[in-house]
């Protein structure tokens, strides 16, 4: 019966109905108690944990009783595309547009990665996602002494606009959306990207895509930082401001739980730390005087999708509801786009095993299914060989095919939020939301996100959870197929792996030497001093950084110009 019909019912009718409902609930409770008594007497398996991977106690059965007392269907779920967005950020979800299949890729130099991108696009991938090498992630040039041995090994080496031009050679940036995983030096790589698009004749207002640019989770979990929190947050707000004016279709941040979870957190910590970081960015933007409804619609998210199937589905649903409620009720946003949480998802790299690596294909398929049932907007499925090396072409193709099978063969995308109404999934969604609210309160108590980072509060919480998970596996309580159960007694890896030749580093150094010799030195020096000067004032730094990029200043030169003013970050060390 719809709400309107309820309203039309006469008072007597309503009373009768309510009392019938109460009777039904009483009967349900009595029957449930009986069932629980029977359940208690039957022996259960004692060879495995019945808690979730996050350590959550999981009930053996859920019933309408678990959903009593909430704000009802319209209050807690509503319809897809409507507040509080529990059922999905868009009205028609995958009926109108499937999620973007976006495989994270990058290795060696820009040339090799450019070829891989063209291969992925030719195979039906619908977006690109750039993996940078460690020197780039930390803001070092390929020819810096600290980069030795790491150039192009874990991702692609990009040290200047010249490398970025090569990376997207022949790939029209007004047609393909590109996501870039870069944080500490995000503003610099973003400037290289904007400048590379300009060279293709594509203005910033036509750019679609995302730069990760989430420094808070770097301090908490992934650890690729450059500057201390305050100047780093200033740069991020500079990007919000610049993008809302010049690149309105581009997401200047992807607030990420992925790395928090991979570092060992529970699902609740991932959810709460990530959204808490998101609220911190909102507050920083508002403190700058930006209109929340201008920048909040472009904030995007990125979550992990781990093994514990239902907990993961519930996590995505809870994330949307929490974000919507806080944005509307706490921050006073009035634009529904500010309430709407849009997210990327990646299957859990940390769940993959080096032993019997082909089993990883199956893990990834289940995780991908959970992400789609959770309503993700884009998805990276891991390749089976990622605990061994960067993925081979074959492994990446299987990972992409896994998404295509999910999209076109299973029928799963045809119905929006098909697990809604499951007593278990709804109870988990409510529980995750309540737990996240409790963590928000704790963060407030310790003085906020930045003081929490400085005190190591987040880092310690993550490390403790990681240690618990490791102990469960080592004690054999948590079974991992091929690792501590159903092992084959041989550690020999039976699949091919990709190796990066050491000559890549020499090749990239030679490119750098050429660039340094050929560029306009006066322009380089002028751009760098202008940036340094601007850093000392309160000015928005995106334009000065962009001028450095266009002048072919290198990544490290630009990093250093700001570092002279900002200093660098020192982590609190503990274990």
């Amino acid at each position, binding site marked *: 019966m719809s709400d309107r019909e309820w309203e039309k019912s006469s008072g007597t009718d309503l009373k009768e109905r309510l009392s019938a409902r109460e009777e039904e609930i009483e009967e349900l409770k009595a029957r449930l108690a009986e069932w629980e008594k029977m359940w208690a007497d039957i022996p259960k398996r004692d060879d495995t944990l019945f808690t979730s991977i996050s350590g959550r106690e999981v009930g053996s059965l859920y019933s309408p009783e678990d959903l009593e007392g909430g704000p009802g269907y319209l209050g807690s779920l509503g319809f897809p595309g409507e507040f509080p967005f529990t059922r999905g950020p868009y009205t028609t979800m995958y009926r109108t547009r499937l999620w973007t299949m976006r495989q994270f890729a990058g290795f060696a130099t820009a040339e090799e990665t450019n070829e891989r991108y063209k291969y992925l696009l030719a195979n039906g991938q619908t977006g690109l996602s750039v993996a940078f090498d*460690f*020197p780039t*992630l*930390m803001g*070092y040039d390929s020819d810096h002494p*600290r*980069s*030795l*041995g*790491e150039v192009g*090994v*874990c991702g692609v080496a990009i040290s200047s606009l010249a490398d970025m031009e090569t990376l997207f050679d022949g790939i029209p940036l007004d047609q393909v959306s590109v996501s870039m995983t870069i944080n500490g030096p995000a503003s610099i790589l973003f400037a290289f990207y904007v400048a590379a698009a300009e060279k293709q004749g594509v203005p910033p207002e036509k750019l679609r895509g995302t730069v990760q640019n989430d420094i808070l989770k*770097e301090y908490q979990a*992934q*650890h*690729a930082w450059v500057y201390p929190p305050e100047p780093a947050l200033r740069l991020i707000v500079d990007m919000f401001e610049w993008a809302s004016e010049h690149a309105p279709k581009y997401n200047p941040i992807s607030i990420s739980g992925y790395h928090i979870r*991979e*570092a*060992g957190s529970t699902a609740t910590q991932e959810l709460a730390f990530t959204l808490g970081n998101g609220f911190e960015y909102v507050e920083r933007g508002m403190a700058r005087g930006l209109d929340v409804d201008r920048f909040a619609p472009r904030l995007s998210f990125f979550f992990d999708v781990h093994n514990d199937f239902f907990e993961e589905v519930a996590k995505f649903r809870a994330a949307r509801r929490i974000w919507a409620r806080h944005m509307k009720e706490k921050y006073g946003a009035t634009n529904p786009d500010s309430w709407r949480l849009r997210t990327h998802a990646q299957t859990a790299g*940390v769940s993959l*095993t*080096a*032993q019997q690596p082909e089993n990883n294909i199956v893990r990834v398929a289940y995780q991908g299914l959970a992400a789609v049932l959770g309503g993700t907007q884009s998805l990276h499925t891991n390749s089976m060989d990622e*605990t*061994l*090396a*960067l993925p081979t072409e074959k492994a990446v193709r299987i990972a992409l095919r896994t998404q295509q099978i999910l999209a076109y063969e299973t029928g799963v995308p045809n119905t929006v939020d098909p697990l809604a109404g499951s007593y278990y999934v709804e109870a988990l969604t409510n529980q995750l939301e309540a737990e996240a609210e409790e963590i928000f309160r704790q963060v407030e108590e310790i003085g906020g996100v930045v003081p929490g980072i400085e005190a190591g509060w987040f880092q310690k919480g993550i*490390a403790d959870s*990681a*240690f618990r998970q*490791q102990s469960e596996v*080592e004690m054999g309580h948590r079974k*991992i197929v091929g*690792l501590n159960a159903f092992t084959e007694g041989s*550690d020999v*890896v039976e699949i091919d*792996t990709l*190796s*990066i030749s*050491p000559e890549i580093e020499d090749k990239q150094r030679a490119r750098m030497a050429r660039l340094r010799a050929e560029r306009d030195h006066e322009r380089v020096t002028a751009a760098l001093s202008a940036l340094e000067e601007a850093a000392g004032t309160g000015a928005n730094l995106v334009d000065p950084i962009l001028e450095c990029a266009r002048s072919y200043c290198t990544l490290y030169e630009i990093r250093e110009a700001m570092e002279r003013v900002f200093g660098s970050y020192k*982590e609190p*060390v*503990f*274990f």
Partner: protein
Amino acid sequence: MPEGDRKIRVLVAKPGLDGHDRGAKVIASAFRDAGFEVIYTGLHQTPEMIVSAAVQEDVDVVAMSVLSGAHMTLFPRVKELLTEAGADDILITGGGIISEDDMEALHGQGIGRLFGPGTPTGEAIAYIRDWAAERSGRANQASRSWEAP
């Protein structure tokens, strides 16, 4: 102080630019629970920083976690610098995403056992204990033969 009474001192180190410290922190906690004296360097250490910490802290073992693929540069460099510092009796061990071929090649260059993904922490603990027991056996033998004549 006799070797056997001293706790085994281990420097857990994260060389290079790789920020993935989940493994390093888990192994540091496991070593501490096993009764080792543990010093953790924190992230983004150069080989020079690691060797200087190892010498200053007078450790028995340097355990490095490398997930970045830069192990073929970082492990030999730490070995080289330890030798230069006259501390080549320190055991270098570690773990990360390191292929078996690379493990073997590094072993040939004087690096101890390296552990891949999924190794129980107990295996690394047992390896270090065995190494220490063997070394102290060697030391006792050496001191007996010196006292003997």
